[in-house]
């Protein structure tokens, strides 16, 4: 007689899996990667390769020898962390610093909490902030785009955000803006910045792909970009000499990369649509506060890490709309 499996329903599954989702995000990063290679050439290739390989290696070593669990280093999540870490580093950063960043990202950001699914903070951002604090000079010298064959020897300059931050104390924002790349160039990524964050259009293409594949929902990117636009827009309307055009804020720095890829990290973002909107709006507001009133020209990384910390709280108090009114049981 045939042996039948008896188990509770459902008896069919969607076939969705963690690797499928992770590799989906990786695919969506390819346009931005291509553009970055176009601008930063060999530096981007070296930084990305080192970052991805070392993230995979550290994940494997820690799982196998320290946690002593079955390694899942190829489920795509370590590759994704490696890619995102590389994307938010300058393309001329020495490779050994990248290795330290990868160790911080995987070791401190992810594995100390128990690995995928348990970390509170976005691992790639943990790696970036670790490097930012440890090597402030290397982390704020940005290669000029177009130097294909230069790596650590590339000519460097300041990012538009840094120029703006220093400039507005003395001159009107509009004047500084007129000396910078046009909005079209900012949209295309032809400026100084972290290797993968520059090309807004390529990141937006990646977002469309993720939305189409339903890997992410619209809530987080839209609420971050929307709140930054509204907040900086209000400031700009109040005093256009002191505050830059909101479009400038959307297209520069790590905002697009942060809003589309860092803040949408599954593990560290809220579970409900409403929670995501609050989280996103908070990130947007804190980003602007740091950019305009804080010590650093760019604040997305800190804003996201801060709201990563709020995520458990949001999950506890922000509930989805339940079906049906609650009536007294009994």
């Amino acid at each position, binding site marked *: 007689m045939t042996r*039948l499996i008896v188990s509770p329903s459902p008896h069919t*599954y*969607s076939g969705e899996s963690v690797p499928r989702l992770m590799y989906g995000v990786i695919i969506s990063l390819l346009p931005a990667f291509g553009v970055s290679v176009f601008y930063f050439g060999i530096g981007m290739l070296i930084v990305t390769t080192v970052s991805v390989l070392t993230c995979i290696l550290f994940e494997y070593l820690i799982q196998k020898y320290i946690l002593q669990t079955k390694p899942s280093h190829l489920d795509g999540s370590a590759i994704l962390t490696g890619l995102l870490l590389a994307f938010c580093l300058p393309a001329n950063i020495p490779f050994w610093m990248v290795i330290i960043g990868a160790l911080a990202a995987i070791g401190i950001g992810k594995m100390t909490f128990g*690995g995928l699914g348990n970390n509170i903070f976005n691992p790639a951002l943990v790696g970036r902030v670790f490097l930012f604090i440890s090597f402030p000079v290397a982390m704020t010298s940005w290669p000029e785009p177009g130097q294909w064959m230069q790596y650590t020897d590339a000519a460097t300059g300041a990012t538009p955000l840094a120029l703006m931050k220093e400039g507005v104390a003395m001159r009107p924002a509009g004047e500084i803006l007129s000396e910078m790349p046009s909005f079209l160039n900012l949209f295309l990524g032809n400026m100084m910045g972290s290797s993968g964050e520059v090309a807004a259009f390529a990141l937006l293409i990646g977002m469309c792909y993720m939305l189409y594949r339903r890997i992410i929902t619209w809530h987080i990117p839209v609420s971050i970009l929307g709140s930054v636009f509204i907040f900086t827009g209000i400031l700009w309307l109040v005093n256009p000499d002191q505050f830059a055009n909101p479009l400038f804020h959307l297209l520069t720095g790590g905002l697009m990369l942060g809003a589309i890829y860092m803040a949408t990290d599954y593990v560290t973002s809220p579970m409900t649509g409403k929670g995501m909107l609050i989280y996103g709006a908070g990130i947007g507001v804190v980003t602007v506060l740091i950019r305009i009133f804080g010590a650093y020209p760019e604040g997305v990384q800190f804003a996201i890490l801060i709201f990563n910390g709020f995520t458990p709280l949001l999950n506890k108090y922000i509930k989805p709309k*339940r079906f049906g009114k609650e009536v007294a*049981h009994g």
Partner: protein
Amino acid sequence: MRSMKLKTFSMGGVHPPENKLSAGREIRELSPSDVVVIPVSQHLGTPSKVIVERGDQVKVGQLIARAEGFVSTNIHASVSGKVSKVDIFPDSSGYRRLAVQIKVNGDEWVETIDRSGTLVKEISLDAEEIRKRIVEAGIVGLGGATFPTHVKLTTPRGKKAEYLIVNGVECEPYLTSDHALMMERSSALLVGIQIMMKGLGVEKAILGIESNKPDAISRMQEITRGTAISVQGLKVKYPQGGEKQLVKALLNREVPSGGLPIDVGVVVFNVGTVHAAYEAVQKNKPLIERVVTVTGKYLKQPSNFRVRIGTPVSHLIEQAGGLPEDTAKVINGGPMMGKALASLDVPVVKGTSGIVLISNEEARRKAVIQCIRCTRCVQVCPMGLEPYLMMNLAEKEMFERMETERVLDCIECGSCSYTCPSSRPLLDYIRLGKAEVAKLVRSRKAV
């Protein structure tokens, strides 16, 4: 199908592959097996009381077990022959329960049953008589829940039924028995709907059908033209056949937590139930047979059979081409909410809408890994719950918290487990939580 704006429910839902392999297959009358086993608890509620003894001769349609109390139903012989045993038999739920075994001999029916094919349109009985006839005929919800139909026909004091909703959604993958009924028995269904409207005392009825059955939508539209019954096409989305989701989709009314459709003025019946009501009221025929889809990817002839209650499942599978080599599970019902059978020797009961054979490939559960909080389970939950949280709470045995998170609202549609990329057994843990919370609620009442 005339062009029509399709409706659907707003919250959650998934779209599993439809796999309606037996769609368009005519309903085939299945010859009875040699022996049938008729369980005495085929419905939600108190088991019925057996009134025959071993050795008795019974006719088709003869009462063999009587309802015990209000939430219970009559059970009739589905074949003629000799009662060979009144004993404990395994049923489709896997439990061993009291049943009546009958050795088939000929096909002699109770004389009062109208076996002719003529359609009786005139509804001569009044509401009270309709209800009585439905009690006598032992009709239960044929969509799978098997709740006694006469209970739903009795509107509780203080409530008022305004709409009858007829459920022709058949949102479970694979199943086609309701589709087949709508195609072949549309005239009888029309009368059946009118009977139910009269029984409930409502003026309006809506028949909801998903748009993957355009032929059924046109057929039913045509036949209901000029009546108070409207036919509404629905976007294909699971679990639209759930009562609460269907009421929401058709009328935009939300049944309150812990409530029933009647709380928002609606009573929902499945098309199979309506058809059974037609036969009971107009033909005096008790519920002794039903349409069952027998299907599966590797089954030779996926079919819609008219089957006598009590026929062993193995007989159905043989008649559909035999059990394929690659069969991992045999499901009583659909693949999303049905129950896996432990044995093929169990009988078809009133609630058996389909027998679905699931291959190893489909049945395989992948290894469970950590929740990555992708939010998919929250997005697909049609009740607005947080399945990931429920599982965490159940693992930690935090059942009071599960209650405040409204775990009892869960309709067990399985969308969360279906969709989880980490293959987490979300619904399994939710069921555990529901059982524990139900215990808590009972113990509070007892104090």
